[in-house]
């Protein structure tokens, strides 16, 4: 069923009784050409592009819970392409271009809103770093503008510009960045993949990976054994656990990241604004709630919930950046399990086991990467060769000494 203004009109006349489920609920077949483990944003996008770009439709996505029940439903929905290093920026640039055409492509309202992303700076050194980053982005063909203090003030007048400790000196703006409806992205890809013949199998937990003579043969699941020619892992925070089923140890630590949403208020903040003095970012959803988050809780966790100390520090950052929010009430908070890699950059690569491919290490930047991650991972699974945009995102880059370390923190996962 194609969604359109006409279909809404026609359904309205018939009391909205004619809508069909957006995807099937098939029983798993005994064999697939390719299986994707993980029915989140990346897994669903991979399945979609396997079918769309490579004509591979005998594909299944296995999800232990319901579709989009992991980090794609637990993020702060920010879409941007403001990276510095050449191993990263072309990939995210491609992702942003895919975001721009995503809704037409999927015939699904993902509520993509290119409202602009402003990174504030508070010192000369930070200004220089952002100038360099902005130049790197422009060299890659992305848009970037270095704003003065007054230019920022014209756009976001209510920030604490004269903060005694961290006065705002300006910002780096990417106008094409913004936000998207996180669940809508997962649902759009799910519907697109399903309509092309991909089986989306929910409540199907992978419990083992069958390997014979170094070649993947299939997966043991809570719904029985399913054979496959190629296996792609897109399990985000649980990547280490799934990879361990194949005997692999990854350069990944799973850590919890919290996010928050306030009560709905009138239109207040038009852009995504990030604080330069602490890791903090804020935007406003279409329902009016302020959506914001900060840093990790700093220790390994699979709990999908965080600590109050982090809540407190995020609230402090919010009030430091935007004093006006001090009396806005927080409605909800939640935590997601981040697959923190040892250099802060993702991994999309083959593994030492034949026909086993892995997609992980998204840290807390996986949402914006969803379209390109699916695009490139599908290319890898279909052709067996890394996509040109991910040639540096290799699993063995740490061993070879080619880490892609945007922040320069080294092999300390909780600092990326």
């Amino acid at each position, binding site marked *: 069923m194609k969604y359109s203004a006409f279909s809404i009109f026609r359904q309205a006349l018939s009391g909205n009784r004619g809508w069909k489920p957006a995807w099937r609920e098939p029983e798993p077949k005994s064999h697939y050409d390719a299986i994707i483990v993980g029915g989140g944003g990346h897994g669903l996008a991979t399945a979609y592009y396997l079918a769309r770009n490579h004509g591979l439709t005998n594909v299944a996505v296995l999800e232990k819970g319901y579709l989009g029940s992991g980090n794609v439903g637990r993020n702060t929905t920010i879409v941007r392409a403001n990276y510095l290093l050449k191993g990263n920026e072309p990939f995210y640039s491609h992702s942003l271009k895919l975001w721009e055409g995503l809704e037409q492509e999927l015939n699904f309202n993902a509520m993509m809103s290119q409202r602009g992303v402003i990174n504030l700076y508070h010192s000369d050194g930070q200004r220089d770093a952002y100038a360099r980053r902005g130049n790197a982005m422009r060299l890659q063909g992305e848009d970037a503008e270095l704003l003065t203090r007054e230019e920022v003030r014209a756009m976001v007048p209510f920030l604490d510009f004269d903060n005694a400790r961290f006065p705002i000196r300006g910002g780096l703006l990417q106008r094409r960045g913004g936000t998207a409806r996180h669940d809508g992205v997962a649902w759009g890809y799910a519907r697109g993949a399903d309509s092309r013949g991909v089986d989306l199998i929910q409540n199907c937990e992978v419990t083992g990976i069958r390997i014979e003579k170094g070649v993947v043969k299939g997966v043991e699941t809570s719904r029985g054994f399913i054979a496959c020619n190629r296996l792609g892992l897109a399990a985000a925070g649980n990547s280490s656990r799934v990879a361990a089923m194949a005997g692999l*140890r990854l350069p990944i630590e*799973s850590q919890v990241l919290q996010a928050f949403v306030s009560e709905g208020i009138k239109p207040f903040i038009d852009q995504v604004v990030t604080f330069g003095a602490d890791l903090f970012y804020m935007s406003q959803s279409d329902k009016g709630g302020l959506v914001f988050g900060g840093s990790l809780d*700093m220790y390994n966790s*699979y709990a999908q919930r965080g*600590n109050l100390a982090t809540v407190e520090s995020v609230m402090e950052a919010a009030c430091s950046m935007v004093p006006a929010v001090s009396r806005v009430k927080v409605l909800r908070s939640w935590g997601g399990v981040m697959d923190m890699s040892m250099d802060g950059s993702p991994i999309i690569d083959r593994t030492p086991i034949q026909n086993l491919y892995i997609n992980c290490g998204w840290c807390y930047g996986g949402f914006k990467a969803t379209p390109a991650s699916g695009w490139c991972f599908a290319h890898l699974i279909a052709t067996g060769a890394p996509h040109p945009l991910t040639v540096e995102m290799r699993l063995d880059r740490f*061993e070879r000494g080619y880490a892609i370390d945007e922040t320069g923190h080294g092999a300390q*996962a909780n600092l990326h």
Partner: protein
Amino acid sequence: MRLTKRATAPRRTCTKGEERIASLITCPHCGLRPKEEFTIRGDAGPVRPAAGAPAQDFFAYVYLRDNVRGVMHEHWQHTGGCRRWLVVERDTATHAVYSVTDAALFTRARAKIARTSTELPAARPTRKGGRT
């Protein structure tokens, strides 16, 4: 690395079953302290290889992690207190803390096991095979 119970036996401040949530940490030197006084370094499992060890061992030490869902040992520093390095035994799924040991005692106990046992601790599995 999975340690035997013997390794963490010295200065156990609470035993298994006596679960404590991770918001209060029993420092062996300072007593019960709020978690915010501590700085978390991460997994205490990896052991630094000897100076002449092959590059593969150093790669595994620096980069590869078991990343367990369950009980793990972590290096914490009591930065807001005695500034000693500690090893905290904590569950990553529930955040419950089982024991806190001074890192020096932990390391000595582990080294003792390594000397007396043939299978611990150097026998960590490492990823094998060259790749293109």
